């Protein structure tokens, strides 16, 4: 068999042919085409179709031709253009010549099925068109031949017009589909090859190269998700499938993570004329956001419920009209009432009768005004006790500013309130007690000042009195001495008279001179001597009160040891022993402390019980801010009625068989008080006495009256 030379055949064909690649670049043409278009091969080869044959893009001709090419390219089907007006440029640039064409565009594929070129077969039908136009206007051409020609042409034109309408509709539909907010795709054949997919669909699946590909090629990730089976079923059964909120995982790009989408969609079978399913129409909406919002809302509600039930607060909610329709679990646990029993307005019955009206009024006011609800009331606890609760509520508004709900809480503030109450009461008490203390302190300070003044006065008084008492005493004593001098002179004279004239000496005179005078003077002298001692004692006490104390650290053990030493002779004489236990030391006035202990130990030695070996013990203990010293003896003891009296000036106790003016203990007490201490005695007659002296460890100078 001879091989056929297709190129020669192509070139020899009387029909004009031109070959375009998918980009509409002219790749080749035959001689008939060059003749028909009045162009040369060189002029056209390699040029864009619309560049070689320019046309206004808004013109009907351009749109028709372009639409036909696109149809071939996209749908990979042959397209016919029965009649198209298309002007072609004249060869020598003398303008355009109006021509009418009938064209067929045929797609050519390579072995893999990819479009490699478009073959245009075009026929110049200008003559026919003119004939028809002539026939319309002239009756001359009414012969059968002309009739046939015109009739045929009319049919061609009618077909073309229908095609044009169809094309426009199709275009319109395509645009509608393309721009539709929902996703739309058309699948063809049992392998579900994409023949159409709008922008929403392409966006959903995240890829654009769908047309001509089967579902499993285009969207491999959905095969395993059951969609292929679904489509197969629809194709097989011819029954549509409606999916609601169906979850699908889609990869937006290669290597991207699978993204979850929720879709509402319909698989609608497309039937061919013979009633068999030829494809499937897919359309639907991506409801992912809606679904997510729903899920989020549900989760949020669940979370709210979980939180509301888990938190230690009573939570409730009401409708805009104030009807209570929700309480959390805690409310029911707290109040112990059955669930639902406090819905509506029944909540008010849970309050203390005294608080109901107030709560109701406040709640009503909030409902009317939208002001947040805030109130404290007593709520009945499941124990039956009314507990103080803080109630609060806030309205929630919709977009139009209407209240949609009220959310409220109750917080048990009973303990807090009680604590506050107690705190307030205790603060009041504290303030009162502080005021009381401060009042007492003021009184005390006043009293101290008064006492100080009185003390000062007494000291001054004692001083002056002693002065003034002493002045006459000096005279009494002085003139008594003068009298003694006189007595001496009188005695001398009396002796001479007795010698010279014994008869003159009467017994009365003798008594006067020899006894009475001496006796009288003797009493005067002893009395004044005693008075002088008393005055000196007063003076000493008043002076002691005026002396400025000089605090210094005192080693009490050493101080007592020194006193022991100075008493050694007396102790030995009386057969007594002084036992000094170790004692705490002090910071105080040394002279005063010496006098206190000196006097007390001296007294103990002085008033021992005759016939019993004396035993005097001095001991001391720490007593907080002070030191407590004890001077214990086994002496004659003191009658209990004299425990206070012995500390008074000039007062003594028991048998007055010892020297003394009743000054020592008065002096000791005055000193101890000045040092900021106390002194007391405990004793039993015949058994012994214990003097207890408490002195501050550090003498306080603030109590000192200079």
């Amino acid at each position, binding site marked *: 068999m001879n091989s056929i030379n297709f190129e020669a055949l192509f070139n020899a064909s009387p029909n004009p042919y031109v070959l375009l690649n998918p980009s509409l670049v002219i790749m080749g043409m035959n001689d008939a085409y060059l003749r028909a278009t009045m162009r040369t091969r060189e002029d056209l080869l390699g040029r864009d179709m619309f560049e070689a044959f320019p046309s206004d893009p808004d013109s009907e001709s351009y749109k028709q031709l372009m639409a036909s090419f696109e149809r071939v390219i996209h749908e990979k089907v042959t397209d016919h253009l029965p009649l198209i007006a298309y002007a072609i440029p004249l060869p020598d640039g003398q303008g355009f010549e109006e021509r009418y064409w009938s064209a067929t565009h045929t797609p050519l594929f390579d072995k893999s099925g990819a479009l490699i070129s478009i073959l245009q077969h075009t026929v110049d039908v200008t003559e026919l068109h003119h004939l028809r136009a002539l026939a319309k206007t002239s009756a001359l051409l009414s012969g059968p031949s002309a009739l046939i020609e015109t009739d045929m042409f009319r049919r061609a034109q009618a077909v073309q017009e229908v095609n044009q309408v169809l094309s426009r509709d199709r275009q319109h539909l395509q645009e509608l589909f393309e721009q539709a907010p929902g996703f739309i795709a058309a699948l063809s054949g049992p392998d579900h090859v994409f023949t159409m997919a709008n922008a929403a669909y392409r966006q959903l699946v995240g890829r654009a190269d769908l047309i001509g590909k089967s579902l499993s090629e285009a969207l491999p990730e959905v095969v395993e998700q059951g969609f292929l089976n679904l489509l197969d079923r629809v194709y097989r059964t011819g029954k549509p499938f409606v999916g609601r909120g169906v979850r699908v995982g889609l990869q937006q790009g290669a290597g991207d993570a699978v993204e979850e989408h929720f879709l509402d969609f319909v698989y609608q079978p497309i039937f061919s004329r013979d009633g068999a399913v030829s494809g499937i129409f897919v359309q639907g909406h991506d409801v992912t956001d809606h679904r997510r919002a729903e899920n989020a809302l549900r989760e949020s509600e669940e979370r709210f419920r979980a939180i509301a039930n888990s938190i230690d607060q009573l939570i409730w909610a009401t409708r805009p009209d104030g009807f209570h329709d929700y309480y959390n679990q805690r409310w029911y646990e707290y109040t112990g009432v059955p669930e639902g029993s406090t819905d509506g307005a029944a909540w008010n019955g849970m309050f203390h009768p005294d608080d109901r009206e107030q709560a109701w009024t406040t709640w009503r006011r909030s409902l009317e005004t939208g002001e947040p609800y805030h109130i404290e009331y007593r709520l009945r606890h499941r124990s039956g006790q009314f507990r103080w609760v803080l109630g609060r509520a806030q309205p929630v508004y919709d977009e139009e500013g209407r209240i949609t709900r009220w959310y409220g809480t109750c917080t048990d503030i009973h303990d807090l309130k009680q604590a506050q109450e107690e705190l307030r009461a205790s603060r009041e008490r504290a303030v009162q007690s502080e005021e009381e203390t401060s009042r007492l302190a003021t009184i005390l300070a006043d009293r101290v000042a008064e006492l100080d003044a009185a003390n000062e006065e007494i000291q001054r008084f004692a001083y002056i009195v*002693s002065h003034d008492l*002493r*002045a006459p005493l*000096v*005279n009494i004593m002085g003139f008594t*001495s003068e009298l003694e001098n006189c007595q001496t002179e009188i005695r001398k004279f009396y002796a001479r008279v007795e010698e010279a004239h014994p008869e003159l000496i009467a017994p009365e005179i003798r008594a006067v001179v020899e006894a009475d005078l001496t006796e009288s003077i003797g009493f005067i002298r002893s009395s004044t*001597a005693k008075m*002088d001692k008393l005055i000196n004692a007063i003076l000493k006490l008043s002076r002691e009160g005026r002396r400025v104390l000089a605090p210094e650290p005192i080693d009490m053990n050493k101080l007592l040891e020194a006193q022991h030493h100075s008493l050694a002779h007396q102790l030995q004489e009386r057969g007594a022993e002084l036992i000094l236990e170790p004692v705490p030391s002090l910071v105080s006035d040394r002279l005063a402390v010496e006098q206190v202990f000196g006097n007390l130990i001296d007294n103990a030695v002085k008033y021992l019980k005759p016939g019993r070996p004396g035993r005097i013990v001095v001991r001391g203990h720490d007593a907080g801010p002070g030191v407590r010293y004890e001077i214990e003896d086994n002496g004659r003891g003191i009658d209990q009625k004299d425990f206070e009296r012995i500390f008074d000036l000039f007062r003594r106790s028991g048998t007055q068989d010892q020297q003394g003016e009743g000054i020592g203990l008065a002096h000791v007490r005055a000193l101890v008080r000045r040092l900021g201490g106390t002194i007391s005695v405990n004793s039993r007659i015949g058994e012994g006495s214990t003097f207890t002296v408490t002195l501050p460890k550090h003498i306080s100078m603030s109590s000192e009256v200079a």
Partner: protein
Amino acid sequence: MPQQQPVTIIMIEDDEGHARLIEKNIRRAGVCNEIRTFANGTAALEHLFSENVRSSGPFLVLLDLNLPDMNGVDILAKLKGDETLKRAPVVVLTTTDDQREVKRCYDLGANVYITKPVEYESFSQAIRQLGLFLSVIQVPETP
């Protein structure tokens, strides 16, 4: 006791008994100088500060501190504050031996401080010492 310039003793003592006892004892100690006795401070100062008396020393002042009209310490201060009278020795006689008072008097220029004793013996002794003192001191001449 021979004295070129007899010292006049100015005794300021409100207690007549004391004044009498002091005088008696001074005399008994052998002091024969003139003794002018004043029962209050005002009279004594009036006398001492009078123009003819002030410059007619020498004086020795026996001063009791407890006076009815003024404190003896004030009198002491006045005397020691005067150009002429400050040369006169002052013997302070009191009934007490308050150490603060003693110190104050010496600070003001008192020459001797004597406590009036109740015991007559010691009082006489003190006065006798005073007499001895009076006999040995050299009273500066008034210029």
